[in-house]
C-alpha cells in the first residue's frame, strides 16, 4: 500500500498506537487500540482522537483535517503491525456511529483488492457474516491475517 501514512508510535505490546494528523485544523493526536474481547484471541479495533490537554479520548469527533485518506491508510498500517506481532489475532471493527461505520466500509472498499492478499475480510449483516463485498452496508467487519 503505497499511500502516504503518518509515522506510528506504540507501546511494547503493539496493542495501542498513536500518530499525529496534520492539516488545516492543526495537529490532532489519534489513538488506535486493539482491545481483547470476551473471546480469547479476538480484539476490538478502537480508534479516536486524543485531546492533547486533557488526555480525553473521543471516538465520535469528526476532525475534518483534510487528511482522511492518510489517516485511514495509517490505521490500516497498524493492522499490519499488530498482526505481525499477534499472528493468530482476530480483529473486529465497527464505527462509533453509522456514518463512521460507512467511512470504514468505504476505506475497506478502497483497499480491499490489496488487503485480500494478506487478510480475510468479512462483513456483518442480518446477524450473520459474509465475505466482504463492495457496496454492501455492513454493521461491522471481521479481519483475519492470512498465514503464509
Amino acid at each position: 500500500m503505497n499511500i502516504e501514512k503518518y509515522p506510528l508510535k506504540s507501546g511494547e505490546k503493539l496493542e495501542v498506537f498513536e500518530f499525529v494528523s496534520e492539516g488545516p485544523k492543526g495537529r490532532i493526536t489519534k489513538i488506535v487500540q486493539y482491545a481483547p474481547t470476551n473471546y480469547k484471541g479476538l480484539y476490538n479495533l478502537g480508534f479516536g482522537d486524543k485531546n492533547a490537554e486533557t488526555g480525553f479520548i473521543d471516538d465520535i469527533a469528526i476532525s475534518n483535517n483534510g487528511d482522511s485518506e492518510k489517516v485511514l491508510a495509517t490505521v490500516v498500517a497498524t493492522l499490519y503491525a499488530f498482526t505481525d506481532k499477534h499472528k493468530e489475532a482476530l480483529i473486529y471493527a465497527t464505527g462509533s456511529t453509522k456514518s463512521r461505520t460507512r467511512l470504514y466500509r468505504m476505506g475497506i472498499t478502497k483497499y480491499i483488492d490489496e488487503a485480500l492478499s494478506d487478510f480475510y475480510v468479512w462483513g456483518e449483516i442480518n446477524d450473520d457474516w459474509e465475505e466482504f463485498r463492495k457496496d454492501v452496508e455492513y454493521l461491522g467487519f471481521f479481519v483475519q491475517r492470512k498465514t503464509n
Partner: protein
Amino acid sequence: MNIKDLKSKKTPIVVIDNSLDFFNDKVLFPEKLEKANTMLRKIGLPKLKNSCS
C-alpha cells in the same frame, strides 16, 4: 533493505514509546468493546479460514 524497499513494505516502522504502555489493560473505547462482545453473543464468529485458528 534500501529506501525503496522500506517505502513499499506493508508493515510500517513503529517507534516504541513506553509512555503508551500506560494504556495497556485500559479500555479506551468501552462502548465499541461492548458492541464487539454483544456481536459475539448474538452471531459469533465467521467461519474462519486459517486451519490454525
